[in-house]
């Protein structure tokens, strides 16, 4: 494996691929059930191309379920079902003609708990998406080296791991592992990146690094992030949706709009209470 070490200066601009406009996502009248228990009701949400959309709300309001519906992970839970459609560039990802793996390849996901493949090398972890979709060349070459570096740079991890790309993924700290997972998701060049509370298990420094990463990739990728951290939602997102499940009603969106509006001028009293930490 050759490593293209360029410079130690972390401010070096990233040799990114030519910019492109990623596809956006649109959820239409999404309802979801686990068995007979309804957890989401008629959720409509447009996730604009290249923007960061934050999903906020108290625990159990269906944010994570909604997120998992966006790349067909919801259906992996036994007994789970849903209604409505999710449009990626105008096409419903639940269209029977479309295989789930096709959608998942364009809509990546980062989980609450970092889940790198523990004994696979850092290098191979980044390329795991290519291997899994049969696109990885048999031997590492200049192209894969470049992709690994670019993905790790985008995820803000390159400088920390460039000298030990052959070490196992499990040898990294929790925050580094999470950024490795982000790099792994970015390496397949997805249109959308879903993040399910990506910082909930991280210390403040790692959290800051991940937030920087999110801001860095915004524009190149459409980001949807679930977070319990109001400051984080405020800092990283362009658009915000407040979910609530209360008074016997399944999870639904109480209010959504530009992040500034949601935090500074919420229309609904419950939104105002929640973003100001008065409940939830």
């Amino acid at each position, binding site marked *: 494996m050759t490593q293209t070490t360029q410079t130690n200066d972390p401010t070096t601009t990233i040799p990114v691929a030519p910019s492109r406009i990623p596809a956006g996502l649109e959820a239409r009248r999404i309802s979801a059930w686990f068995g007979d228990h309804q957890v989401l009701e008629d959720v409509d949400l447009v996730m604009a191309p290249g923007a960061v959309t934050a999903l906020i709300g108290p625990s159990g309001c269906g944010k994570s379920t909604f997120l998992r519906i966006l790349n067909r992970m919801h259906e992996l839970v*036994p007994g789970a079902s849903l209604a409505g459609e999710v449009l990626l560039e105008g096409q419903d990802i639940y269209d029977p003609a479309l295989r789930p793996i096709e959608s*998942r390849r364009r809509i990546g996901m980062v989980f609450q*708990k970092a889940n790198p493949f523990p*004994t696979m090398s850092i290098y191979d972890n980044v390329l795991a*998406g290519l291997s*899994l*979709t049969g696109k990885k060349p048999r031997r590492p070459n200049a192209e894969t080296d470049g992709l690994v570096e670019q993905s790790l740079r985008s995820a803000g991890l390159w400088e920390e791991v460039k000298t030990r790309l052959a070490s196992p993924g499990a040898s990294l700290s929790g925050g580094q592992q999470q950024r490795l997972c982000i790099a792994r*998701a970015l390496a*397949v060049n997805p249109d959308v990146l879903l993040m399910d509370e990506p910082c909930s298990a991280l210390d403040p420094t790692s959290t800051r690094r991940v937030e920087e990463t999110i801001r860095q990739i915004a524009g190149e990728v459409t980001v949807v992030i679930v977070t319990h951290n109001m400051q984080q939602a405020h800092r990283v997102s362009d658009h915000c949706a407040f979910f609530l499940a209360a008074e016997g009603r399944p999870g639904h969106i109480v209010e959504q709009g530009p992040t500034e509006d949601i935090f500074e001028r919420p229309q609904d009293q419950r939104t105002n209470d929640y973003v100001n930490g008065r409940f939830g």
Partner: protein
Amino acid sequence: MSTVDPALLVGAERARRTLVVRPTRQDVTFVAAVRGAAISTLVVMALIGIFLFIGAWPALEQQGFGFLTTTDWLPESGTFGIASLLWGTVLVGLFALVVAVPIGFGAALFISEYAPAAIKKPLVTLVDLMAAVPAIIYALWAFIFLQEQLLGVAQWIAVHFGGILPFLSVKTPDSPSSYTSSAFIAGIATGVVVVPTVCSIMREVFAQAPQGEREGAIALGATRWGMIRTVVIPFGRSGIVGGIMLGLGRALGETIVVYSIIAPDFTLTTHPLQSGTNTIAAHIASRYSESNGIGLAGLLGAGLVLFFFTLIINTLAGVVVRRSRSGAATEI
């Protein structure tokens, strides 16, 4: 003489307190009881080994190292050994694995990864039930039904491949009776008995593959098989090896199924499809009631060898299975 106040000491000089947890009488009684139970299993194990060794000693003393290298079993004339038995045992064990490993592995993978929730539990129960069926039932089935069915298979293999691979040939390939009672048939029948052992070990390890890594692979666009290849199998590798070894341990000791099939033969079988072979367990079962004196000592010696053989294999299997996660790789 002045003593130093212990509180003023620092570092290594500082006196450590001895912490005492005083157990209640109930604790003491209970621990003694369970410790006794645990020790008694070890004692029984050791007593069996000692019993076998003492009983076998006259034979081992008389035959010396020849006990392991002699193929004949003629205690009356003073030459007997377990070479052919040991070889037959290994041969039958290997044929058993040829059946048990692919079926056990496939079934474990299906139950753990593909089976719909509704049939998963029944399948697990069914496989466990398979393990609970007494060996004599398998023996009857193998002797009356399975052997008949396998004759054609054995003949086909011998006729088509016997020319290229001499060990697959038989003396009179046209006669079905050349193929009865062979190591091949005994091995296949034993393999059926061993399937549930192999399957349960593998299934349990597969089921423990971390959900996070599974979802990680799926979210990257992996197919189900891609996810299994990347996460489940590398994670379960030690379970696969352990399952195979436990299956082998079980197959080596299988008695009644082999006994019902084979025609005893005291040569080093080089043609496993050919009628006639023998294993340690089947040999002991067939000769035990009619042996005495040095012959009986010889059987105990054979038992001793089997005892250690299976003990070693099962111990290794246990070690491998226990290591499950620690070193399991995720690979593509």
